[in-house]
């Protein structure tokens, strides 16, 4: 089977995984925001006024939850890129030209970084369970090693 036949489904699978992850993250973030809003409403209904310190804390919890928009925006951009690339592969195949000579990295990691020292470093948010968490990042910074 030629590379063109295998690349499209891989790109589309990856795009679908990103969209599914973005959907889950939006649901989690909206749930957090609504929970805080409900808590604020309940507190105001109970006491007739909101304690200003806890009000501020709840407002900042909403701020932090809204960071999902950056992450999901990047995931959707990645998905769009993969779909565009899959369409490009399909078009080339249909025109009977080989796209595989073009770097696989270029089609799966993003076009901008090729040839630069950022090649392989522009991946956007990792899928859940794939990237490092903050504790692992902290250890890596402290250790001074490359692993």
């Amino acid at each position, binding site marked *: 089977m030629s590379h063109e036949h295998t690349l499209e489904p891989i790109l589309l699978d990856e795009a679908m995984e990103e969209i599914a992850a973005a959907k889950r993250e939006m649901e989690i973030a909206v749930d957090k925001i609504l929970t805080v809003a409900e808590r604020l409403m309940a507190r105001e209904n109970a006491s007739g006024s909101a304690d200003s310190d806890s009000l501020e804390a709840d407002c900042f919890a909403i*701020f932090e939850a809204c960071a999902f928009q950056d992450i999901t925006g990047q995931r959707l951009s990645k998905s769009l890129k993969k779909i565009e690339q899959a369409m490009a592969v399909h078009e080339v195949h249909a025109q009977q030209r080989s796209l595989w000579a073009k770097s696989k990295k270029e089609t799966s990691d993003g076009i901008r970084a090729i040839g630069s020292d950022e090649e392989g470093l522009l991946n956007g948010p990792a899928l859940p369970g794939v990237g490092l968490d903050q504790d692992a990042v902290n250890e890596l910074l402290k250790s001074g090693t490359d692993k």
Partner: protein
Amino acid sequence: MAFDMNKPVLIVDDYRTMLRIIGGLLSKLGFTNIDEATDGTDAYAKLKGKHYGFVISDWNMEPMSGFELLKKVRADEQLKNLPFIMVTAEAKSENVVAARKAGVNNYIIKPFSGEVLKAKLKSVIGDF
């Protein structure tokens, strides 16, 4: 000596939502003079025009990424010691290693809490 909370600080991100969030968190922490930039080129021009206390930058931006900005800052005689914190969704070890080698002072993975931001800032600029 404690950090002067009136000193200008710069946040760099191509998502306006993140600029609002980080700016809001910094305000809550007591920083009073917060500037914004939407990519590395914009940020570098601002950094050359004013003395900033620190930079908090996203990585993935165009035309100049946060990584390119970091390298440019560290190569600049005037800016080379500027505290620089990367705040990014890039969560691979290769990214952390590359940023560390390029001279980043700290690295925060998105999404993050106000407590994480405060702790990372304290580790870089000291008490405030």
